[in-house]
C-alpha cells in the first residue's frame, strides 16, 4: 500500500508546472479572458509538443502511453495555471469517450490528432436546463443524421469534432440513447458562441440539421458509455479543481503576508488566518479524495463510480470555497478586473456546473454508496 504519486510522477508535475508558469502567465490567460482570442493556440501547440495532450493515450494511437495517474498530475497543473485551452473537453471527454467506445478506425483517426494538437474535441450532452439524464436527451438520430440543438457545449465554437448523445429509441429508458461522432467542420452544423461565466473556456450552442454522423459504440449503449466518461472526467476535473483551489489559497496567503492594515500584516489577524486555515482544510480533503479517485481511475477499480463522485463533490466545494475567500482576503482589490482573483472565481463556478451540478453528484454518490452497502 502506498498512497502517493511516484517520484517520476512528481517530476512530471514539476516539469508541467514550470512549463505552464512560463507559457501560461496570467497575462496570457487575459488575452482569452478579454475576448481577443478564443483560446491560447500557442499554449495548445506547446502542450502537444510536451506530450501532455496524449499523456494517457496509448502509443499505438500517437500518445505517450503513460497513463491516467500522469494525466491527473497534468490536470492539477492545468487548473493551477487556469489554462485557457480546451483541455478538459478534448482530453477528458472526447478522448476518453473514444478510448472507451471508439472503433479501431475512429481511434486511429482522432486520437493521434488529439495528441498532436491538431484536433480539438468535445462532448455535446446538454440541451438547456438540467443535469445529466437520459430523459433530457431530445436531439434525434435517424438513418445516420442528427437533428436538434445542444447547449451549452464546452469549447463548442472551436472544436473540430464532437461526441454527441442522441435519442435513438422510445422506451423511455437509458437504452434510448446512443452516441455519435460528428466532424463539426462538415455540413449541417450551425455554431453560436454563448456568453458564459468563464470566458477563458468558451461555451456554444450547436444546431444540427440533417447532419451526417457516425455511431460511436453500440446502439443503445450511449448512456452507459456516457456514465463511464463522466466518472472519468469527474476525477480528472477534480484534479484541475484541486490545482485551482491550491493556487487560490496560495494567492490569498501571499496577499495576507504583503498587505498591511492597522499597522499589521493582515495575515496576523485571526479572522484572516482562520479563513485561510479553513481553505487549507477543504483543499486538503479534496486532494485526498481526488487521490483515491486517481487510484480507482488508473486501476479501473470497482470503486471508481463512488470514488469519482466523492472526488467531484469535494473538489468542487474546495475550489469554490477557496476562490471566493481568496477575493475576500484581497478586499476591494480582489473585486477588480485587474487582479487575478476573479479568474479563479469564474473558473471555480463554471467547473462546478460543467459535468452536472453538485446536487447531481450528491445524488450519484448516495446511490452508489447504497449499492455498495447492499452488495
Amino acid at each position, binding site marked *: *500500500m*502506498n*498512497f*502517493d*504519486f*511516484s517520484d517520476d510522477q512528481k517530476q512530471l508535475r514539476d516539469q508541467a508546472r514550470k512549463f505552464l508558469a512560463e507559457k501560461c502567465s496570467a497575462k496570457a490567460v487575459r488575452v482569452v479572458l478579454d475576448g481577443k482570442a478564443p483560446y491560447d493556440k500557442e499554449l495548445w501547440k506547446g502542450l502537444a509538443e510536451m506530450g501532455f495532450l496524449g499523456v494517457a493515450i496509448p502509443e499505438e494511437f500517437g500518445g505517450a502511453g503513460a497513463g491516467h*495517474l500522469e494525466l491527473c498530475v497534468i490536470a492539477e497543473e492545468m487548473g493551477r495555471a487556469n489554462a485557457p485551452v480546451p483541455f478538459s473537453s478534448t482530453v477528458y471527454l472526447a478522448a476518453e469517450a473514444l478510448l472507451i467506445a471508439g472503433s479501431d478506425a475512429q481511434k486511429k483517426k482522432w486520437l493521434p490528432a488529439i495528441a498532436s494538437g491538431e484536433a480539438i474535441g468535445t462532448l455535446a450532452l446538454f440541451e438547456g436546463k438540467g443535469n445529466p439524464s437520459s430523459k433530457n436527451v431530445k436531439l434525434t438520430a435517424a438513418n445516420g443524421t442528427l437533428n436538434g440543438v445542444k447547449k451549452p457545449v464546452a469549447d463548442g465554437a472551436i472544436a473540430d469534432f464532437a461526441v454527441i448523445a442522441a435519442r435513438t429509441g422510445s422506451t423511455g429508458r437509458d437504452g434510448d440513447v446512443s452516441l455519435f461522432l460528428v466532424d463539426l467542420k462538415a455540413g449541417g452544423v450551425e455554431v453560436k458562441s454563448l456568453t458564459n461565466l468563464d470566458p477563458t473556456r468558451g461555451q456554444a450552442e450547436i444546431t444540427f440539421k440533417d447532419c451526417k454522423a457516425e455511431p460511436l459504440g453500440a446502439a443503445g449503449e450511449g448512456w452507459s458509455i456516457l456514465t463511464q466518461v463522466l466518472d472519468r472526467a469527474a476525477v480528472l476535473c477534480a484534479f484541475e479543481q484541486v490545482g485551482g483551489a491550491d493556487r487560490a*489559497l496560495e494567492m490569498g*496567503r501571499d496577499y*495576507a*503576508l504583503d498587505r498591511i492594515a492597522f499597522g*499589521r*500584516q493582515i*495575515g*496576523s489577524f*485571526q479572522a*484572516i*488566518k*482562520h479563513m*485561510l*486555515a*479553513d481553505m*487549507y*482544510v477543504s483543499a*486538503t*480533503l*479534496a*486532494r*485526498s*479524495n481526488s*487521490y*483515491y479517485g*486517481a*487510484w480507482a481511475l*488508473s486501476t479501473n477499480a470497482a470503486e471508481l463510480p463512488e470514488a469519482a*463522485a*466523492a472526488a467531484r*463533490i*469535494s473538489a468542487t*466545494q474546495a475550489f469554490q470555497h477557496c476562490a471566493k475567500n481568496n477575493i475576500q482576503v484581497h478586499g476591494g482589490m480582489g473585486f477588480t478586473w485587474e487582479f487575478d482573483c476573479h479568474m479563479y472565481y469564474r473558473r471555480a463556478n463554471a467547473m462546478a456546473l460543467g459535468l452536472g451540478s453538485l*446536487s447531481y*453528484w*450528491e*445524488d450519484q*454518490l*448516495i446511490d452508489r*454508496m*447504497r449499492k455498495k*452497502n447492499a452488495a
Partner: protein
Amino acid sequence: MNFDDTPQEAEFRATARAWIAANAPKQYEEELRKSSLGRTVLRNANILEVAKAWQKKKADAGWACLHWPKEYGGRGSSPIERVIWQQEEGPFGQLSRMFIIGHGMCGPTMMAFAREEHKRTYLPPLASGEKVWCQLFSEPAGGSDVAGLRTRAEKDGDDWIVNGQKIWTSGAHYSDYGILLTRTDPTVPKHKGLTMFFLDMKSPGVEVRPIKQASGASDFNEVYFTNVRIPDHQRLGEVGDGWNVSLTTLMNERSAIGAAVSTGFPELFEYCASLMLDDGPAIEDRAVRSKLANWAVKASGLKYTSMRAISALSRGERPGPENSIGKLVAGSMIQDVATYALDLQGASGVVSGEEAELAGRFQAMLLRAPGTRVEGGTDEIMRNIIAERVLGLPGDIRVDKDVPFNKIPTKGRG
C-alpha cells in the same frame, strides 16, 4: 499509487486476522460495534477490566503498541502494518481508547526524553495496559495557553517538591502514572521556566477528584498536589526545557487523537438507510441525500488524508502540523451529524438513554461532542497551528512573550 497489500503486507494481515479470530473477546463485539462517541457500554462487564485483559493478551502475543520498539513492549512494526492491524481489529480497537493518552502521548514522550532504564521499566507495562498513564498539563489558568500554568516544582536535594493543581485530567482516577508539566522558574518569560516530569500517581500528596462533565459522565478530574516529592531522575528533558518536551507530547496528541476521532458518518448513513420519514425512506429524500453526501466526502477526505500521512511516515517523514486537520474537521462534524440525526427523529429525539431511538446513541454523541472540539486543543488553536505552521502566517501577537511570568496580569476584568 497502490491500495493493494504487498505480499508481506498480505501475510501480516492474514496472521493478524487469524490471531484476532482466535483471541478477541467476541462476546462484546456486538456491543462495541454499536457504540459510538459518548456511548461505549458493556452491560454486563466493567469496560476497563475488559480493555485491560484484551490489551494484556495482545501484549503477550506481540500485538500491543505495534510501532513501538520490541524492547519497550512493542513489535517494531511499520506504519502500514499498524493500519492493517487497526483494520483487522475492527470494533475491538474501541477498547484501546482507554489507553489512548498513555499510548499516544505519554509513551512517545517517555521514549524521547526518559533515561534508558526508565524506558525499559515503565514502557512495557504501559504497552500491555497493566499500568495506565495520564497527562497532567492543563490547569485552571493554563489550557490553550499551556505555558501559563502555575503548578510549582522546587528543588530540594535530589528531589523536587510539587505544589499546585491540574484540571481536566482524563483517566487520572484510574491512572498509575502521569506526565506532569510544572513551573520551575517564575522569574523568566513563561515558556522558559517550565520543566517536565513523570510521577507515580500514588505518591503521597496527590489527590484526584473526579469532575462531572457536561455530558453527565465523569472521565476527567481535578488533581491536587501538596508537597509531592518527585526524584530528579524522573525529570524528562532539561530543567527549563519543559516547553519543548511538551511540544513532542502535543504533536503526538494531535495525530493520536486526530486519527482516533470518529466522524459519526457511518452511524448516520446506516441510520438514514433504514429510517422511514413521513413521506418515505429518509435516504430517498433530496435534502437528506445532500447532507449525507456532504458529510460523506468529509469523512472519506479525512480517511485518505490520514492514508497520505501514513505513506509519508513510511517514507521516514515525521508527523507534521497538518495532522491537526483530523480533529478539527471531525470534531465539529460529529456535533453536526448528531444534531441532524436528532432532527430526523423529530420531537422524540429529545428522549435520551435506553428508551431512545437506537438506545440513545446519537443523543450520547451530541452530549459528548462539545468536548471533542476542546480536548487536545480547541478548534481555534488547531486553526492557528495550520495558519502559522503550515501556511506560514504570522504568529498571534503575544503581549506576555517577553514578560517574566510573575509579572503577567491574571484577570480579564477588574
